[in-house]
C-alpha cells in the first residue's frame, strides 16, 4: 500500500483538572502539590467504609462553562455512575464518572489543519469525573517489589473532553490540545502550569485497520511524540504485511515509544451502573446564565484589528492567556515591535532557558524599557537580543542585578551612528577586494559578507541598514 493511501485517524480523550478549591466529592483542599503525601485526604477520598460523596457545585459550573464555550448541548439529565476496576490508586475500586448520561454532548473546536486552513473538530461528549491517587514508586530490586501511593490527588475534579476521530496528524492533535488548553485557561477553570493537570488518551488507527489506544500521556509534547511513534510503528507493520492488534498501549515518556499493555489490564469489564449515592443532576437551564469571557479566537481577531498585527503573531500571542495579557501590557511601546519581540524572540529565549513567562512578566516595566531602547534606535536589534539574554540569565539565576539600560551601559552596546564606523568600513573594503569585486559583479551574498565583517568589528553597535547604505555609497551599486 502506498504511503499516501495510509490515512491516519486520531481521536483524543483529554482530561483536565478543574481548578476548584476543594475536591469533587469532599471538602479536602485541592491545592496539594506542595504538601506531604496523604495529608489532603479524608474518609471520602480515602474510600473508607461508610463515607459518602457529595458533589461540588463549582465543578459542575466550571464544566458547564467549558461546555458552553465549546458549543455543546446539555442534556436535561446528567447521571454519575461507577466504573469498576481494581488498581492501587483507586480507593473504592470504582471511579465515579459519567456514562450513558454525560454532562454535555456534541460541540466542536476550531483549529488549523497542517496546510493552515481552518478545520472544525467535533466533540463527542464532555463529562466530569474524579482523579485517582498517584503511584509514586513502582518497586525495584533495591527497595523491594511493592508500590507506594499518595492519595492526595484522589478525588480531584477532572473534566474529560472526547473528540470524534477527526484529527489526521500528530500536529493537528497538538494544535487541538493547545486550543483546548487556551480555552480552559481563558475560562479560568484550569491551571495549565500545575504539574499533571492535563492528561490525554489517544485513539489512533490507519484507515482500514484496527484502532490502538495510547493511555495516559501527560504532556503536550508527549502527545505529538507518542502519535508520531505510533504512526510509524503501525505503517511499518502494515508495510511488512502485519496486522494491527486492537489493544491498549502505554507511552514511555523517556524513550518516546509506546509499549503494549498486558492483556489482564485491558480485558477489564468496567460494569458501569448509576452511582446510588448521588442524585441525578438537571443543570441544562443554568447554561443561559453563564457569561463567557472573550475566548482565544475572539481575542486573536481583536488583536489583529486593534493592534494591526499579523495573523500568525495574533494567534501565537492569544494561544496562551498569560501571554495575551503580557502583550497587552507591553503593546503601548509599539504594537508591532511588541508583537514581534514577544512572539518571535522572547518565547524562544524563555523556552531555551526552560523559564515560564511569569518570570519575565514579573518585571514587565524593564522589558518595556528594553523594547523602548530598540524602538528609539538607542540600541540595534542585535544588541537588544544580547541585552535580553543577559537580563533573562540574571532572572533565571534568581540574582537580578541590572536593568536593561545598565546592561547596555556595562557592555557598551549603545548604538553609534554609521559615520563613526566609516574608517572601519573602508578598511574592510580594502582588505576584501575579491568580495568587493563579487559584489560589483552582482554576486548575491557578497554584500552580506562585507556587512557581517563590519558588524563583527563594531561589536553589533552599528546598524546593518546604515552599513549597507555606506558600502553602496563607497563602492557604487
Amino acid at each position, binding site marked *: 500500500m502506498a504511503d499516501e493511501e495510509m490515512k491516519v485517524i486520531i481521536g483524543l480523550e483529554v482530561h483536565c483538572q478543574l481548578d476548584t478549591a476543594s475536591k469533587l466529592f469532599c471538602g479536602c483542599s485541592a491545592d496539594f502539590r506542595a504538601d506531604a503525601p496523604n495529608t489532603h485526604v*479524608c474518609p471520602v477520598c480515602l474510600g473508607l467504609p461508610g463515607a459518602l460523596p457529595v458533589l461540588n457545585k463549582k465543578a459542575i459550573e466550571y464544566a458547564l462553562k467549558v461546555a458552553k464555550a465549546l458549543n455543546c448541548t446539555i442534556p436535561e439529565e446528567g447521571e454519575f455512575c461507577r466504573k469498576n476496576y481494581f488498581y492501587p490508586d483507586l480507593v473504592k475500586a470504582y471511579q465515579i464518572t459519567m456514562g450513558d448520561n454525560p454532562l454535555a454532548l456534541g460541540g466542536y473546536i476550531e483549529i488549523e489543519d497542517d496546510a493552515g486552513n481552518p478545520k472544525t473538530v467535533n466533540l463527542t461528549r464532555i463529562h466530569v469525573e474524579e482523579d485517582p491517587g498517584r503511584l509514586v514508586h513502582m*518497586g525495584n530490586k533495591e527497595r523491594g517489589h*511493592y508500590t507506594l501511593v499518595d*492519595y492526595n490527588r484522589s478525588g480531584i475534579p477532572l473534566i474529560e473532553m472526547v473528540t470524534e476521530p477527526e484529527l489526521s496528524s500528530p500536529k493537528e492533535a497538538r494544535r487541538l490540545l493547545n486550543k483546548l488548553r487556551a480555552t480552559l485557561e481563558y475560562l479560568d477553570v484550569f491551571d495549565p502550569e500545575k504539574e499533571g493537570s492535563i492528561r490525554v488518551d489517544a485513539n489512533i488507527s490507519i484507515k482500514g485497520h484496527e484502532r490502538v489506544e495510547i493511555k495516559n500521556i501527560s504532556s503536550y509534547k508527549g502527545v505529538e511524540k507518542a502519535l508520531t511513534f505510533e504512526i510509524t510503528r503501525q505503517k511499518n507493520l502494515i508495510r511488512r504485511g502485519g496486522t494491527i492488534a486492537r489493544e491498549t498501549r502505554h507511552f514511555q515518556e523517556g524513550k518516546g515509544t509506546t509499549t503494549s499493555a498486558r492483556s489482564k489490564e485491558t480485558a477489564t469489564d468496567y460494569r458501569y451502573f448509576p452511582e446510588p449515592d448521588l442524585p*441525578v443532576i438537571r443543570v441544562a437551564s443554568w447554561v443561559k446564565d453563564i457569561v463567557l469571557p472573550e475566548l482565544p479566537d475572539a481575542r486573536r481577531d481583536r488583536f489583529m484589528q486593534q493592534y494591526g498585527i499579523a495573523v500568525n503573531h495574533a494567534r501565537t500571542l492569544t494561544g496562551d492567556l498569560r501571554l495575551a495579557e503580557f502583550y497587552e501590557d507591553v503593546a503601548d511601546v509599539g504594537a508591532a515591535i511588541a508583537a514581534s519581540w514577544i512572539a518571535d524572540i522572547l518565547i524562544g529565549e524563555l523556552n531555551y532557558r526552560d523559564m515560564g513567562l511569569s518570570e519575565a512578566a514579573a518585571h514587565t516595566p524593564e522589558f518595556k524599557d528594553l523594547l523602548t531602547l530598540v524602538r528609539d534606535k538607542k540600541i540595534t536589534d542585535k544588541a537588544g537580543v544580547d541585552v535580553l539574554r543577559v537580563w533573562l540569565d540574571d532572572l533565571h539565576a534568581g540574582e537580578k542585578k541590572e536593568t536593561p539600560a545598565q546592561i547596555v551601559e556595562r557592555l557598551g552596546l549603545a548604538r553609534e551612528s554609521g559615520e563613526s564606523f566609516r574608517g572601519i568600513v573602508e578598511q574592510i573594503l580594502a582588505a576584501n577586494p575579491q568580495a568587493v569585486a563579487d559584489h560589483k559583479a552582482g554576486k548575491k551574498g557578497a554584500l552580506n559578507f562585507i556587512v557581517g565583517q563590519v558588524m563583527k568589528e563594531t561589536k553589533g553597535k552599528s546598524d546593518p541598514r546604515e552599513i549597507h547604505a555606506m558600502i553602496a555609497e563607497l563602492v557604487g551599486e
Partner: protein
Amino acid sequence: MVSENDVLHIAELADIGIATSELGKFTEQFNAILEYFDILDTLAADDELDRPLVNVFREDEVTPSLPQEEALANSHNPEDGYIRAPKVI
C-alpha cells in the same frame, strides 16, 4: 445457564477467587438464583424513572483533612507518608 467457566471468569473479574472444591456448588446455586431473577425479563423498561431527588450539591468550601497519622493508621508499613500497595509491574 451459567457454566463453571462463567463463574470462574466472574470470580476473576471480581478479584475474589474460587476454590475448585466449591465451584460446582456455587454454579448450581448461581443458576437457581438467576432462574429466579428471570421474572424481571418479562417487564418492559420504557418508562421514565422517577427522580425523588435532583441537584444535591455542596459549595466549593475546604474542610479539614485527616491528620496524616490517622490517614495512615490502618495501612501496612507506610513509608515516608506513602501507603504501601502490591506491585503493579
